[in-house]
């Protein structure tokens, strides 16, 4: 999966989870995960759903939210773009392993 495909996947899940608001712009790479349209429970849902869909599409079993992610200097959960980047790293690691 390319970086762009991962971004598209996260954006799609984000839009699905966000409560429908008339005229709200669709999510983009720079959309913030926290403090935006999603409450924190929905952010957790989004993360788990990304894991599931990656597993279904690529057969790669990745865990996004773990101690490793939480202890990084910069949180991978800032924006859709940073999350997608982190997911790409995890997928690369899982194919190397």
């Amino acid at each position, binding site marked *: 999966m390319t970086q762009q495909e991962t971004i598209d996947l996260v954006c799609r899940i984000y839009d699905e989870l966000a409560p429908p608001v008339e005229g709200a712009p669709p999510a983009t790479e720079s959309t913030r995960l926290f403090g935006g349209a999603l409450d*924190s*429970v929905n952010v*957790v*849902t989004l993360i*788990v759903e990304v894991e599931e869909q990656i597993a*279904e599409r690529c057969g790669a079993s990745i865990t996004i939210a*773990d101690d490793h992610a*939480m202890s990084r200097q910069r949180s991978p959960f800032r924006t859709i773009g940073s999350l997608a980047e982190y997911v790409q790293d995890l997928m690369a690691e899982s194919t190397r392993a």
Partner: protein
Amino acid sequence: MAHLDWLYDIFKDHLAAPCLVSNDQPFTYEWLLEIISQWRACFIQMGLSPGAIVALQGDFSPQMVAALLALIDHSAVIVPLSPSVGPQQQEFMEIAEVQMAIRPSLDGLHEVQRFEREPENDLSRKLVARGHPGLVLFSSGSTGKSKAALHDFIPLLGKFKTPRRTMKVLTFLMIDHIGGMNTLFYVLSNAGAAVTIADRDPDSACAAIEKHKVELLPTSPTFLNLLLMSEAYTRYDLSSLRLITYGTEVMPESTLTKLHALFPSAKIQQTYGLSELGILRSKSQDSGSLWVKVGGEDFDVKVRDGTLWVKARTAMLGYLNAPSPFDEEGWLDTGDLVEQNGDYVRFLGRRSEMINVGGRKVYPAEVENVLLQMENIKDATVRGERNPITGHIVVARINVTEPEDRTSVHHRIREFCRSRLEPYKVPVKVEIVEGNQFGGRYKKTRRLG
């Protein structure tokens, strides 16, 4: 004088009446008395000493019941082990320090296994010294290790001396379960009849109810769910049912509502019991209500921090393999979370199964109840899975009726739950599973991941 003379006096007044129906064949109280005395003679012949610890292996059957009663009279400590124990049989026999294992067969022949060991457990020895028969029940152990509760059989039977309504009962609950034991002695002490079944699937159970005009069905919410899902009630005449009782786990409100509509003339009653304490007396507010009054003359109950505590006049003597769970005054923390309204309580779930999402409580039963109302969802089990962000996330395991992909089911679940549950209760993860989500005891299997 034998321990069960009072019970045999009841049998003698009903010699020609059936006490058991097994494989569609009736067995009378006269037959039962005869077979009990054969078992007693057999024990003497085998050199079985009073106070011996004996495992009784098998499901409900006429020979099994006769052997059980004869063992009580022989002052044995009885460890019933039904087939649902599965591969843990050996482990359980070691915990209970079983000296002899008997497996009665249908024709009265039986397998006997002897174990060279002297009981070392203080509780067992104390009971044996008292000259009373004992009963060892293993807690179902959905979480953690099974605990062995040792009871003095005599006080446990005391309440059956009060006459109650004579009924024909389906032995759905297992003989090694406090509910199964309760069913059996309820039947026998009121000269009723127990109808045994080999399979506990909805069609077999319904066929037996129709054929033998069963009046009382003591069962679990899981079975009642299966009954609704299978629509087996449309294939059999179940009009003989006067009373349906459910216990052992939380009843989904949707199941109860449907059931109540389908069986308007049957009383639907919640029961409550624990391997450690026996069965409490209970009274549902009405057949469609999950509010229930529990207690009775032999029990004191109180709610502390949202949990039900019970003090029983005749509790178990203790666990054979764990410290005593009672406090100094004899109260037991049941681990069952309840809501309270005057004299009535409503069971919310086990504390050990409660999901904690970012400090907020989610009861699996509440979420399952919503999921079960959806189209194309046959069964749902909700549990918590550890998550570094919120502590736990809510995970739903779903059985679908018609094939449907996971994403589509998850999407529908989100839509459906959004308007019915607080956001943190909506399942974050959805798994589609094929197999049954319950064990041999027809009780949901939930594990905190």
